[in-house]
């Protein structure tokens, strides 16, 4: 398999090509087989590669496969090469595994959509681009995958493009991430210019020699700019909540397995640049901490179930950034893995609920519908998987996977001495418990469970992904002791500078429980603290938090309006005024001379006479 792991990204891309070319002429069954099958075979390839890789394991030796030379110019040769090491292996496995389950689920969710084929074509391309990104051994190839992911997110968020709001959300996602992509591209040029290579391993080695200059910091900050855009972190986070306009499986794919974690992967992959620059590391940690807190507060006020999940994704990616910034590299990647499982699970169960409620997103309306019995009954699988996913998101200690990874990040923040970052992370973990179970209790508490019935066919396509992910959301935490050293082989380790007292150890376990308890007090049917709840919802700031701290308005004020104003100013091309003036004067002369040329001989004679008289008068007088 050492030379066949290129099939992992190649199969989804082939699936995309086939579906794009022949999707219109294929039956729904054929599209389903093709779309899900390509990812399925890719998963098999990934598993086989993983088995072989682990078998033939020599510490730290990556598999490198150079497929062909992309281009070579003097001073720079770029090859299309793939690299499998413990980091990309874990990442690729999680991506392809979760993508596969989401594809299976999509086969049910999108069943009957008139553009079934187009949907699966984009989904396959999305997965293929993400796998290219993950397995790339070359920064330019990574960038290709990166842009591919951005393109597909645009196409899929705007999948139901007939709704103008969806198309707007797609354009917003594309443009906002483009800001970050530009920074990434400049960083890429700098790497090529200064190190003369775009191979990740070689560039990482040669940058070490330039430690004393400001170059590593500059490049790391530019890469961070790219990561911030793609991972929806402060200050480029505004596109993510709007990206919920896409179909629910797309949200699951963007927010769990693929797009938003690309930023985390980029920083982990380019860690050689970041460890050389303490400034960049601090920036990563600060961005992560601020984003996780801001997003958690916003999530608390959302009424749309998918927007709540979007903010929670932003917040969890914030944890990953925080972990990368404080040097808990492996813990961050571990959190990526558990997050991929439980967030995909949450989105898919939310999708089941939304579909059962006839596209109703508002949690309070869902509750009303459930109480009045006018909707389809919510299947128990949605209840149980939302509960499992929610518990993992809230990091319920000991039993859920989210707790293991998140606690590692939080303790990493403490032991590396970032106290205020640690405090924000703790506050975030309390809020996570609160907002997750606010939604859970609002939708499910006391509304009763009905018999299993979807009002649709192909129930297994839903049951299997939800069940598998539920299991993984719980058990993924138990492989912590295996996976951390495995990832540690390519990721740097940071020695703790501080001991961990008992209270620091126990706090991240207790705070989610307090949050959940508070959610029960506020939102259960027998809520005691109704006065507090009423106050919180009527608070003057709730609208501000609902709109995600009004970043959209801020950017509208700071960027969009000045831009439009400048656009209006130069709409008439002021510089052209000089040239148009010349044209106007020539036109005037043309008009005068043209009108005087009448062909009437007597007028000419008169004009000659007048002219002569004027000249003679002139000559006599002066």
């Amino acid at each position: 398999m050492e030379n066949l792991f290129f099939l992992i990204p190649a199969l989804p891309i082939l699936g995309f090509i086939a579906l794009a070319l022949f999707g219109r002429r294929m039956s729904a069954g054929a599209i389903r087989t093709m779309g899900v099958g390509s990812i399925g075979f890719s998963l098999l390839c990934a598993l086989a590669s993983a088995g072989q890789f682990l078998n033939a394991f020599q510490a730290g030796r990556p598999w490198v496969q150079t497929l062909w030379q992309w281009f070579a110019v003097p001073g720079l040769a770029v090859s299309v090469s793939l690299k499998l090491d413990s980091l990309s292996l874990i990442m690729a496995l999680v991506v392809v595994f979760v993508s596969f389950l989401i594809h299976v689920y999509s086969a049910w969710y999108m069943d009957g959509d008139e553009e079934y084929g187009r949907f699966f074509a984009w989904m396959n391309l999305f997965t293929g681009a993400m796998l290219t990104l993950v397995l790339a051994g070359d920064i330019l190839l990574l960038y290709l995958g990166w842009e591919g992911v951005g393109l597909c997110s645009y196409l899929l968020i705007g999948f139901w493009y007939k709704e103008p709001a969806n198309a707007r959300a797609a354009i917003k996602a594309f443009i906002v991430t483009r800001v970050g992509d530009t920074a990434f591209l400049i960083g890429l040029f700098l790497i090529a210019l200064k190190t003369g290579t775009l191979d990740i391993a070689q560039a990482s080695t040669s940058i070490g020699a330039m430690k004393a200059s400001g170059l590593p910091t500059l490049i790391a900050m530019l890469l961070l700019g790219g990561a911030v855009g793609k991972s929806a972190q402060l200050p480029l986070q505004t596109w993510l909540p709007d990206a919920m306009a896409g179909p629910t499986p797309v949200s699951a794919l963007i927010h769990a397995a693929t797009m938003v974690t690309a930023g985390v992967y980029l920083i982990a992959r380019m860690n050689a640049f970041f460890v050389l620059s303490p400034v960049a590391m601090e920036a990563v940690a600060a961005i992560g901490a601020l984003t996780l807190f801001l997003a958690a507060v916003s999530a608390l006020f959302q009424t749309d179930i998918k927007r709540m999940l979007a903010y929670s994704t932003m917040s969890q990616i914030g944890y990953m950034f925080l972990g990368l910034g404080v040097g808990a590299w492996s813990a961050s990647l571990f959190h990526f893995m558990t997050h991929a499982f439980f967030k995909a699970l949450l989105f898919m169960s939310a999708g089941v609920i939304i579909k059962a409620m006839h596209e109703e997103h508002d949690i309070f309306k869902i509750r009303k519908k459930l109480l009045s019995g006018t909707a389809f009954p919510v299947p128990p699988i949605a209840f149980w998987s939302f509960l499992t996913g929610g518990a993992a998101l809230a990091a319920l200690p000991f039993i859920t996977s989210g707790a293991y990874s998140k606690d590692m990040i939080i303790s990493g923040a403490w032991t590396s001495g970032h106290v205020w970052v640690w405090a924000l992370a703790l506050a975030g973990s309390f809020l996570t418990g609160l907002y997750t179970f606010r939604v859970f209790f609002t939708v499910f508490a006391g509304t009763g469970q009905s018999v299993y019935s979807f009002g649709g066919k192909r129930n297994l396509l839903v049951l299997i992904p939800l069940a598998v992910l539920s299991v993984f959301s719980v058990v993924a935490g138990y492989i912590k002791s295996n996976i951390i050293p495995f990832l540690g082989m390519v990721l740097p380790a940071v020695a703790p500078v501080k001991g961990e007292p008992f209270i620091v150890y126990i706090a991240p376990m207790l705070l989610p429980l307090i949050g959940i308890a508070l959610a029960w007090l506020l939102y259960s049917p027998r809520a005691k603290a109704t006065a507090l709840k009423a106050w919180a919802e009527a608070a003057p700031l709730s609208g501000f938090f609902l709109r995600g701290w009004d970043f959209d308005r801020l950017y509208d004020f700071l960027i969009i309006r000045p831009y439009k104003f400048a656009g209006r100013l130069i709409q008439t091309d002021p510089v052209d005024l000089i040239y148009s003036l010349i044209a106007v004067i020539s036109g005037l002369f043309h008009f005068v001379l043209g009108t005087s040329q009448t062909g009437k001989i007597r007028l000419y004679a008169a004009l000659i006479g007048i002219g002569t008289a004027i000249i003679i008068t002139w000559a006599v007088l002066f």
Partner: protein
Amino acid sequence: MAPVSIDNGLMVAWALFVLGFIGVLVRRDLVFVLMSIEVMLNAAGLAFILAGAKWGKPDGQVMFIFILATAAAEVALGLGLVLRFHHKFKTLDTDAASKMRG
């Protein structure tokens, strides 16, 4: 007969010239326009004769001979053009030939 004073003679030449010019401006008929031009030429010739008499030199009379020759040539050409004009436009109105705005 007392000699004609130069001022009076020039006044006559001036009056002739203006009369000829007014004729060119107001008459539409091409033949009259040609005749008015002849009058203007003769006004110029008279001015030359007067100047020659004033300075007692033959140059003025020489110039008059030149003007006569020019006028004769002009009439020869001009009448030919008038005939073609009439043939083409069936009129002698100068404004009739303004179609090309030349």
